[in-house]
């Protein structure tokens, strides 16, 4: 299913953050087929439509939960709606228009009675001074970036513990950096200072902390990125796409990195370009989404099932939700991604946990290929309370991996190394658009040892390869109740191997 090396033959190549490409007029692009697991997934995670009143167009781009448990939705059309009663079993949420007339909202935070809205043109503090329920003051907190070209989207974070906000800026027309700091990430301090912190972004689709509180962002497949990925936004780091180096003169506190060489591998290139930050979690293109977007960490204290403290992330093209976990190994972030739930009704641009611990998912299908068939939608994923048999988490150990499960694995299948199929690949690190999976290998699983409680297994491999995505197919495993895994695959990106 991997699709690579499409060349733009005619028309205009158009890209959205988190989105790959398609061509206007007479061509189009694959959106990829479903995983085919929706019918089984629905027994564990129910998809509930949140009806949008007739006449409203709510193309959700950002969410934030308010102290009174309402959820604010910022939209591509520049509106902010306040939604009440989102958690009812059969929801008919109230929609109150709080603000309108803003410019494509892809970031929404809230503090002390004020919204902090990342719109394409600026980061804005939005308040209702009169108390009539409508915004009436829009204060520019930061506009210290250029905004003058097509496709220059801006994605904003929530507040970090120190009160900072972060903005990830997409490139100009998707390929260039023609306006100030396009392709950079900016930190906006509580005092209103805007500090460039990292270059090399291509087409971000979301920005925020990982489950450990480190700042990450979503990168999209394209030049220098052969798949979508989660990346650690290292202060002073270079995120891989060198076209934005032209603005280092405007960030004198940072040192311009050496230019990376196209056609290499990131694992070798990061040794030469010290600032280069490798992809923490690669989402194999098409198999794990095609345009990954907003994400959120599950802190629902078990209300959303067994995946506490994990990242939940949407995909625009394929209208699905995935999971991810990360860990710090030898000072470098890396981790795994997992299929979770497909069959949503529109292209997912962002996700947010509701006060009752359900996952609110929203977006639109406007402008780019999308599998779901609704022009826009708000949907809620509710855990039904049934425990799915899933790969809960994959983490690395010196000679292999530790794999946690949500339900006990039966000893017969779980102790058999043949039931742990692992293969690896990496991508070419290059300036071309996307890229194939290369340098494939199939390591031997030498030992598989299931814990006494059946909830985790450790596997020892004859080799671990740095820079490679390690793909797991555990379809042969069975739970003690003889369940098949709901999703048999997981994908772990190995940047570093821990010491023995």
């Amino acid at each position, binding site marked *: 299913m991997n699709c690579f090396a499409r060349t733009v033959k005619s028309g205009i190549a158009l890209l959205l953050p988190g989105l790959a490409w398609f061509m206007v007029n007479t061509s189009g692009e694959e959106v990829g087929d479903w995983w085919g697991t929706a019918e089984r997934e629905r027994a564990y995670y129910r998809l509930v439509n949140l009806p949008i009143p007739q006449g409203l167009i709510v193309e959700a781009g950002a969410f934030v939960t308010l102290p009174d448990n309402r959820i604010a939705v910022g939209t591509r059309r520049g509106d902010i709606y306040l939604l009440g009663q989102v958690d009812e079993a059969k929801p008919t949420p109230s929609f109150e228009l709080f603000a309108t007339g803003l410019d494509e909202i892809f970031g929404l935070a809230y503090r002390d009675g004020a919204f902090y809205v990342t719109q394409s043109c600026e980061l804005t503090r939005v308040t209702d001074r009169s108390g009539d329920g409508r915004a009436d003051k829009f*204060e520019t907190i930061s506009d210290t970036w250029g905004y003058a070209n097509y496709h220059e989207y801006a994605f904003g974070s929530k507040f970090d513990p120190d009160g900072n906000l972060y903005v990830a800026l997409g490139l100009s027309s998707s390929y260039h950096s023609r306006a100030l700091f396009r392709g950079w990430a900016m930190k906006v301090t509580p005092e209103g200072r805007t500090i460039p912190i990292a270059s090399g972004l291509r087409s971000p689709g979301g920005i925020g902390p990982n489950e450990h509180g480190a700042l990450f962002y979503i990168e999209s497949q394209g030049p220098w990125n052969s798949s979508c990925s989660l990346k650690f936004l290292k202060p002073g780091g270079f995120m891989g796409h060198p076209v934005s180096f032209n603005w280092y003169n405007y960030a004198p506190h940072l040192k311009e990195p050496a230019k990376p060489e196209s056609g290499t591998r990131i694992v070798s290139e990061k040794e030469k370009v010290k600032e280069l930050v490798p992809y923490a979690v690669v989402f194999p293109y098409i198999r794990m989404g095609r345009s990954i977007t907003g994400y959120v960490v599950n802190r629902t204290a078990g209300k959303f099932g067994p995946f506490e403290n994990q990242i939940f992330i949407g995909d625009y093209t394929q209208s699905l939700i995935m999971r991810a976990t990360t860990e710090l190994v030898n000072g470098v972030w890396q981790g795994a991604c997992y299929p979770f739930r497909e069959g949503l009704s529109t292209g997912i641009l962002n996700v947010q946990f509701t006060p009752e611990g359900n996952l609110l998912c929203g977006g639109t299908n406007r402008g780019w290929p999308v599998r779901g068939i609704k022009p826009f939608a708000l949907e809620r994923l509710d855990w039904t309370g049934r425990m799915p048999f899933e790969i809960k988490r994959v983490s690395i150990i010196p000679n292999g991996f530790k794999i946690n499960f949500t339900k006990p694995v039966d000893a017969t299948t779980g102790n058999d190394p043949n039931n742990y199929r692992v293969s690896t690949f990496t991508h070419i690190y290059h300036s071309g658009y996307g890229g194939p999976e290369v340098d494939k290998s199939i390591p031997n699983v030498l030992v598989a040892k299931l814990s006494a409680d059946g909830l985790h297994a450790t596997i020892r491999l004859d080799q671990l390869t740095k820079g490679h995505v390690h793909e797991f197919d555990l379809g042969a495993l069975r739970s003690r109740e003889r369940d098949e895994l709901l999703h048999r695959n997981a994908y772990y990106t190995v940047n570093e191997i821990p010491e023995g």
Partner: protein
Amino acid sequence: MSSFCTLPYLRFGLIGIFLSSTILSIFPIHATPLIPGLGGKHPLDERGIGEVLLGELRCGACHADEYSQDFHRQGAPDLISVGQRLSPEYLRRFLADPVRVQPGVKMPDLLAGQSTMKRSEVADALTHFLVSLSGSPIVAKPNPGNARAGRILFHDIGCVACHSAQLGNGSKEVADGLLPLAHVPIKYDHHSLSGFLFNPHQARPSGRMPDFYLSGDESRDLAEYLMGGKSPSVKPFKVSAELVDKGRAYFREFNCVACHSLDREPPARQSLPLTKLNPSRGCLSTKPKDAPDYNLSDIQRKAIARALTSSRSRLSAGDAIAHSLTAFNCIACHARDDYGGPSKEFLPHLKTSEQGLGNQAKIPPGLTLAGAKLKPGWMHKVLFDGESARPYMHTRMPGFGEANLGFLPALLAGVDKVEIAEFPEPGRKERGSIRSAGHKLIGDKGLNCITCHNFNGKESPGFKGMDLLTSYDRLQPAWYYHFMRNPAKYRPGIVMPNYWAGSKGARGDILGGDTDAQVWAIWHYFSYGQGAPTPSGIHNPGSNIEVGGVVRTYRGRSRIAGYRGIAVGFPGGLNYAFDAATGTLSGIWRGDFVSVGWGGQGAGSFNPRSRSINLPRDVSFLQRFDEKEKWPLLPVMTKENPVNPDPLYPRNLGYRFLGYAFDDAFVPTFSYRCGDVGIEDVSVAGEKDGHALLKRTLKFVAPAAQTLHFRVIAGKVEAVSDTHYKTPDLKLKLPVTTTILRRPLGADPALRELILKLDLPKGETRLLIDYELLR
């Protein structure tokens, strides 16, 4: 399996004993249990009818056996909340004599053979017990809805598939086998009824009353209609602890828990399994005594007896489908094979907003081969998630609950088969051209499918038929192929022409006219999903923003205000644009406000809907300015030099945008700075001599006395007086101040720029400028 079978014996009698209440007097009484599906065009023989009755009457609750069918599983109404749903008085009457109070009800009379006094005593105690379960009894609450809207809903969305419709003269149609609703006004109040209609499965988990996905307003409207304009009849009710205890004892004595499970109640007592029952005794005797009385007709008894005496076994998949479709009355709307479909009474209530598409746009689709037609994911969404691909059809596909019908998709998929169709996967090289052919075939330069179909959420210029882009997600490819080859075979009466009956397609110039190639080309084109390029003949709708009664402010990129543009529109039709990147008034126009680019990828860029008077977008204010020097102009990016050569242009000149605030009328005041001078900039609409006037007020706050230069306008400017200046489109009125009208350095000799030299004292200074539009 027999062919169509109507059951006149299910008609309830019209002669009977009337209760004293005037409301109850309208009921026909002694109606046998009504199963709407059995009154329709079902395919069941006597044994099949008996099987359905065994399930619908919950016989297995007391007489469990190993042959319980999937469609037999159904929960009785929830009793935990019954006290908050129903009038206690109604409950009491109903429990004392269910058949008389709610003719056709499936709940049996559990007090058969008891004296009138005993009936009354038991019903009273049970009522106290049941009301006590919900903590507090129902309190009548107003919940006003629109009865007229409710009436339309009732008749349009499908309620009349199971319930009697009301004729234009207000009387009810007398329809066989339909459930009466005359008891509703004494059973509920408006609030509890609308709550029930909003989420019927909460109270009745069996799904026999399906969920029509009503909104809150719709629920209220429908409740208002069904209450018939009557005021709530709920009277205050005080629960007696003594009667609660007695009621609990009766609840156990009469084995109510067999159907109505309650926590903390002991499990139900089981009686003989169905296979051991004597069909002429107990509940099945003609006059049950000391056994539940279902008020069965002779024919119902006979059907049940046939089912009981036939060799008990699991039904085949095909029979289980037929039984299920009958039990849930799917056949009221849907035909399958040679059974089901709307009755002649129901047909007039099936409506569409697209008359031109014929009956196919009104009548819910047939279920013949449904398991081969729909992809499992879509079938689940339609059955259980309220999805629909037919927005023009007024009848709604309701939800029966996944817990009740979750077994059906697999049954249909197992039974329904179409001939396998080879689905060639094009190679990478051919894929583009094949899809282009599909794109062409769909559009108005091809077969013009879009004249009857919407596409990707965009409306057809003709009939607004089913959105073609849903096809790939809904349909299985083999069924799609056979349907395209012969639409009328799969949907009799469809208005869609048959383009591919033979081996040659309708358009010989596309893919050589090869039928299969054309059919698959369209399928591959659909497989793009929402990224499929729009076919010729479908247009992106424009999006206009109307001002209405209050001032509108809209941010977005614009050719007249730059990427950080802001448009402001006043009621009355005066509009202006402000470039927040440089702090300039950059355009003024009369007429409609703006159109915005929200089609496709459109980021919402705005365009004035009439010709704008455009003003330069260079910074307007400078703290330090040598009048001999050129006014610093906005950097220009070109195709050849696309990178901004001076990215800090406004910032290095002291400009900083601070935002804006609305007053009570939503008029924005823009705030920005030039160095340490704060500027507040507000404009309002006015009129002078029939000309539109933008009245702009600038407030400066200077921390120290200083001079600020303000470039008001540039272009073909001429002085009319010391305070009046003109361009071909505008007349400006300024206060008395020092002005410089000069030819910009290096500019066309005809051009001038007007610069004000503002000597600001420490503190606040105001400056008023009128912009009079001359056209």
